[in-house]
């Protein structure tokens, strides 16, 4: 059983609240739910929609066709009716509030009204909402899907919640940020939790202030984290290089969206892998990790804290809007890697320094410092191999290998379910896992990436000498995430027997 619902309307009409409400109700009943958000850079008006796909098996992505359209405005029908399956239906109600629609959907899906009532108690304007919801519930006469109650304990969370949980569980002391989609939810979430968990969250005047303040707090020994998206990260890169020479620990959450420049501000893309790996002038060690779901986001954030503290390096957690703001179903408990605070306040420098921390231009000393940084890189490489730095799914012995990283994981796992495919998900982009070469060598390698140039393919070529044929690169660069049914067809076309 798989059922997909699209909720569309103007910004301000509340399609996101509506679908989140239903998603949570479905989760509480033991269903597996995946919900993505598509919204414009508009506060009131325009067109926003969410898509929920739910199933009695684990699901990590949406499909291209929908069973039900919930249209808060007429425009939703115009824009999306092509996606409706033959037997699909549309719920409309011009001028009605969003809880009217909630009532109708719950009735349609045979979810007890009591459940909706309990959920509404947690929102504002209960009286008004419950009245609207009841009206909707009584209006709806059809039933398109029987909702059974399963006794599974499941959680509904998005990637940014995973990053935030990871930071809190890693013992973050300070989080600095300047708001930028799609990283903003992390500062919001952490700000709300700062007093209860005793850490500090501060919004500063710009991203340059953010990273320099973070370096300041990091050298006092505080576990410090910052968050931004591509443009903000660009502003930070001079100071990223400073962390390289001063060897200060810092965790950086980089949540991508399509560039160049302002690009498509509220949509998704994986165009910043090269940026994460190469940003900052000069040569210095760093960690770049990319989670593919909220649990991995928690785990890899804790590993970023570990590496940054242990080795005094910047550690970048690379995500994107699709992972950051889509909601996933999880029943796993994240495996958190603990980290000690290793940094002492002493004399730090943006110059090369001698053994007393004083600036130096001495060539022997420069060589010594450079070689120490290189040696540290080697230690980091070895340590990284002790972690789960990539994952394998599907038929381990298949001739066909799909490679990817980050938020494409969900659609790929759903797409290759019934295919003869091995899926290699790269978790560590820097240092790059040594064993990847063996996993893909001699196979029919297919790349899936939300970018125009396939940056992971370039990285694989650099690290393994293996080139992926251009025809085998499945690239999407319209700002939208992959949908598993379409992706499955794309992969099938490239399979070898």
């Amino acid at each position: 059983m798989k059922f997909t619902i699209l909720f569309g309307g103007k910004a301000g009409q509340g399609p996101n609240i509506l679908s989140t409400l239903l998603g949570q109700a479905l989760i509480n009943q033991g269903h597996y739910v995946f919900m993505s958000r598509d919204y414009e850079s508009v506060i009131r008006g325009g067109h926003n929609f969410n898509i929920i796909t739910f199933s009695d098996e684990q699901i990590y992505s949406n499909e291209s066709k929908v069973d039900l359209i919930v249209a808060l405005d007429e425009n939703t029908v115009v824009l999306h009716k092509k996606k409706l399956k033959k037997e699909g239906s549309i719920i409309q109600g011009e001028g009605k509030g969003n809880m009217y629609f909630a009532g109708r959907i719950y009735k349609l899906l045979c979810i007890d009204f009591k459940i909706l009532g309990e959920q509404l108690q947690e929102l504002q304007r209960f009286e008004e909402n419950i009245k609207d919801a009841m009206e909707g519930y009584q209006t709806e006469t059809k039933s398109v899907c029987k909702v059974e109650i399963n006794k599974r304990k499941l959680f509904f969370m998005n990637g940014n919640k995973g990053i935030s949980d990871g930071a809190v569980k890693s013992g973050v002391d300070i989080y600095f940020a300047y708001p930028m989609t799609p990283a903003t939810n992390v500062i919001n979430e952490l700000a709300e939790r700062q007093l209860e968990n005793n850490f500090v969250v501060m919004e500063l005047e710009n991203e340059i202030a953010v990273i320099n303040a973070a370096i300041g707090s990091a050298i006092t020994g505080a576990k410090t984290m910052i968050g931004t998206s591509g443009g903000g990260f660009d502003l930070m890169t001079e100071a990223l290089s400073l962390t390289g020479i001063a060897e200060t620990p810092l965790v950086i959450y980089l949540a991508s969206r399509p560039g160049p420049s302002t690009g498509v501000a509220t949509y998704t893309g994986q165009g910043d892998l090269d940026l994460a790996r190469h940003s900052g002038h000069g040569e210095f060690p760093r960690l770049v990790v990319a989670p593919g779901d909220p649990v991995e986001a928690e785990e890899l954030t804790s590993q970023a804290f570990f590496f940054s503290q242990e080795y005094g390096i910047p550690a970048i957690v690379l995500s994107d809007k699709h992972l950051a703001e889509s909601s996933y179903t999880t029943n796993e408990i994240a495996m958190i890697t603990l980290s000690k605070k290793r940094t002492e306040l002493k004399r730090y420098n943006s110059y090369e320094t001698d053994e007393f921390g004083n600036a130096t231009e001495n060539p022997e000393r420069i060589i010594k410092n450079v070689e120490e940084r290189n040696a540290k890189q080697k230690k980091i490489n070895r340590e990284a191999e002790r972690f789960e730095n990539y994952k394998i799914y599907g038929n381990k012995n298949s001739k066909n290998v799909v490679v990817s990283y980050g938020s494409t994981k969900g659609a790929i796992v759903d797409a290759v379910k019934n295919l003869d495919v091995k899926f290699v998900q790269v978790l560590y982009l820097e240092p790059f896992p040594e064993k990847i070469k063996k996993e893909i060598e001699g196979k029919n390698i297919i790349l899936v990436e939300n970018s125009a140039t396939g940056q992971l393919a370039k990285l694989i070529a650099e690290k393994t000498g293996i080139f992926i044929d251009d025809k085998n690169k499945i690239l999407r660069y319209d700002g939208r995430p992959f949908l598993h049914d379409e992706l499955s067809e794309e992969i099938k076309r490239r399979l070898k027997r």
Partner: protein
Amino acid sequence: MTSKKPADKNLETGKIPTWCPGCFNFKILTGIKNAIEREIRNGKKKEDFAIVAGIGCHGKMFDYVNLNGINTLHGRVLPTCLGMKVGNPNLTVLGFSGDGDAYAEGMEHLIHAARFNADIKYFVHNNQVFALTVGQPTPTTEIGFKDKTTPQGVKFPPINPIKLMLSAGATFVARVYANSEQIEYIFREAMRHKGFAFVEILQPCIVFHNDKGYMEKTYSLDQVKHDKTNFQQAMKRAEEFNYSDVEKIPLGIFYQTQRKILEEQYPQLAELKRLKIGWKDIKR
């Protein structure tokens, strides 16, 4: 050349200063070191202090004052100071910038630092020129100044940092001349102040901006019964010197007021201050 082992007790780093012979930075350095040593004699520990300097001739202050801290990027002294204060609110954080550092590359931070009012002592070595890059105009260079980048002479009026800091809400705004006694005095006053202390040091550059004539135009605000609690008076005094025409240059504290400091605005930081610890000491 590598340096000698720094002394544990005093402020010597063992590094021989590389400023030009006769540079006024020597006078600033002496004043600052005397002032810190006095604080240490009066019971403060060396470890209670932290120093942050930027890039430029002033930045070498870090090389010659043996305190914990960081010689950071050009223009980023203030956010770095803020971060250290948030990391451990018990530190006495001293920031040093040049006029390029403070008023060009780092201007946005300067305004916000005044707004945030963290307990940071900030000293700007203003020689009205980019000296370490051999003589280009900065935002406080006078109209008509000529060099290779502006052979026709500077066309734009300099900014007035004193007025700017008053407008931005700084709670302590002062100017001194690069003279060790004046610096010792103003350092003491800045230390007594609770909040962001902005101190501009007028510093002749003997190679690229030799303004020896400044000295005789200066006068002390103390001698004219200036009311440093009066904002309007402070603004008027600030306007007496526009960094281009040199008639009268007031020195001393233009303005001082009290406002809640950043460390008191966050209960988490207030608690660290009460316990006399930094986040480093928080076990989770």
